[in-house]
């Protein structure tokens, strides 16, 4: 436990330090002291990140709640205990300012000090978890609201045309056949959208099982699967990825399948399509790259490519969920995904970053 004492009275400093440094439990205690707020901030700035900060409130360069604010602002996730006089009101004000516990100095004994430090650490940890959870929740709610409005729009478009076509079937009998076909296409599109949306919703609910995934082996499996759908077109796929990553096997397979299907969907009319899957070792990470020579994406639209239901072209049969779903799956496996390069001249390289497998990882038998 790294402990910082900010106290300008040498007698009090020694008393507190002695109590804390006396061996107790198995906890190793490293105590550092300073006499001013400025020195404390310098010490933290130099790399001493305390787990606990014990603060006197009357220091040469600051007093009261200002001291608490200054330390709370610079000490990251330290539990802050304020050493007060007998004034409980001041203690309460310090809690408001960011301290976790307060403790009167007079008659302080070791047991009370340790108990208060423990309580402050518990409070700090709960507060931090709560703040993180609230932040995550806000983000999720925002994403959901955004998705909801996009979905509503995208579902309304074919619904609206379906109504128009149905109306025409009645009023324009001479072209009934054409209107019926159009109506059927609109309804089919709505059906696909709802199905894709249901699939997308499922992604957040299945927990990934992280295992050691052999990329070469994964490639063989994927190739077999895709051959069933693609027939001879599978020839465009060149699998060069090897090595081991730590991921959920099925999810990773889905991600790569989405990326390969995307490459197949947006091939360049003047180029014989080639899709290459390769891997690069990047320290503790492995980058899996899906590179194609398709129609590419101009850099100014790269950000849009991963947004759910955002389509960059009206060509092809896509619904705008393939890349968004792939990214969501990768993130759920503790990885990241981005466009590494893309242009209409050269095609696209998407990179999936995942942790390299460790020796301790479970090797799942396929």
């Amino acid at each position, binding site marked *: 436990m790294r402990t910082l004492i900010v106290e300008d009275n040498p007698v009090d400093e020694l008393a507190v330090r002695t109590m804390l440094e006396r061996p107790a439990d198995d906890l190793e205690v490293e105590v550092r002291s300073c006499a001013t707020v400025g020195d404390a901030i310098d010490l933290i700035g130099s790399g001493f990140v305390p787990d606990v900060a014990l603060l006197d409130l009357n220091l040469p360069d600051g007093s009261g709640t200002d001291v608490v604010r200054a330390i709370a602002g610079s000490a990251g996730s330290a539990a802050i205990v304020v050493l007060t006089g007998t004034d409980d009101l001041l203690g309460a004000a310090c809690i408001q300012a960011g301290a976790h516990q307060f403790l009167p100095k007079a008659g302080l004994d070791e047991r009370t000090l340790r108990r208060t430090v423990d309580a402050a650490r518990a409070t700090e940890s709960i507060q931090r978890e709560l703040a993180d959870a609230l932040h995550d929740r806000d983000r999720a709610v925002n994403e959901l609201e955004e998705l909801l409005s996009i979905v509503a*729009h995208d579902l*309304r*478009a074919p619904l*609206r*045309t379906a109504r128009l076509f149905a109306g025409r079937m009645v*009023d324009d009998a001479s072209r009934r056949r054409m209107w019926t076909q*159009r109506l059927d296409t*609109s309804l089919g599109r709505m059906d696909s959208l709802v199905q894709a949306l249901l699939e997308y919703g499922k992604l957040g609910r299945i927990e990934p099982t992280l295992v050691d995934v052999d990329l070469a082996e994964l490639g063989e499996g994927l190739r077999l699967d895709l051959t069933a759908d693609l027939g001879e077109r599978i020839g465009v796929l060149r699998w060069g990825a090897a090595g081991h990553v730590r991921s959920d096997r099925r999810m990773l397979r889905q991600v790569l399948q989405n990326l390969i299907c995307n490459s197949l969907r947006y091939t360049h009319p003047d180029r014989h399509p080639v899709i290459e899957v390769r891997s690069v070792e990047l320290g503790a990470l492995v980058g899996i790259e899906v590179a194609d020579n398709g129609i590419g994406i*101009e850099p100014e639209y790269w950000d849009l490519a991963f947004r759910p239901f955002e389509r960059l072209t009206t060509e092809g049969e896509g619904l705008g969920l393939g890349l968004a779903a792939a990214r969501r799956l990768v993130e759920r496996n503790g990885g990241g995904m981005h466009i590494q390069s893309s242009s209409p001249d050269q095609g696209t390289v998407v990179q999936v970053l995942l942790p390299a497998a460790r020796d301790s990882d479970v090797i799942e038998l396929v």
Partner: protein
Amino acid sequence: MLTARTETVEIAYVDDSEDDQLLASIALQDLNLPHELTIAESAIELWSLLRARIEGGLPLPSVLVLDLKMPKVNGHQLLAQLALDPELSGIPVVILSTSADVGDQAAARENGAVRYEVKPSSFSGLVEVFARIAALGRQR
């Protein structure tokens, strides 16, 4: 003396939905007005088409109709771009979108659209929308 105007109104319409393109052309046929409908599938296509007319000294459309939600460059961005171009900013622009969002309507007005039409859910509604659009084109 009154002179009958027999000029053809040219409406340039950009929408990425093939269904909406078809419906627009049939609604205009039903109106029975002398008109010409030029269709673009994307903002970039409409922009290049207009610039090419200017380069070639050809007449410009009487009215532009813009969808809002389109891939890559959306209707708002195209509208802003049109407003900045001295040779194109004089053409009246109508927004035709499924969005009834007040934010979209305010943004369109701010960027210089003369009308905002929400895509109707009935064919007769659509014919009325294009009657208003054609009337705007004839005023020019």
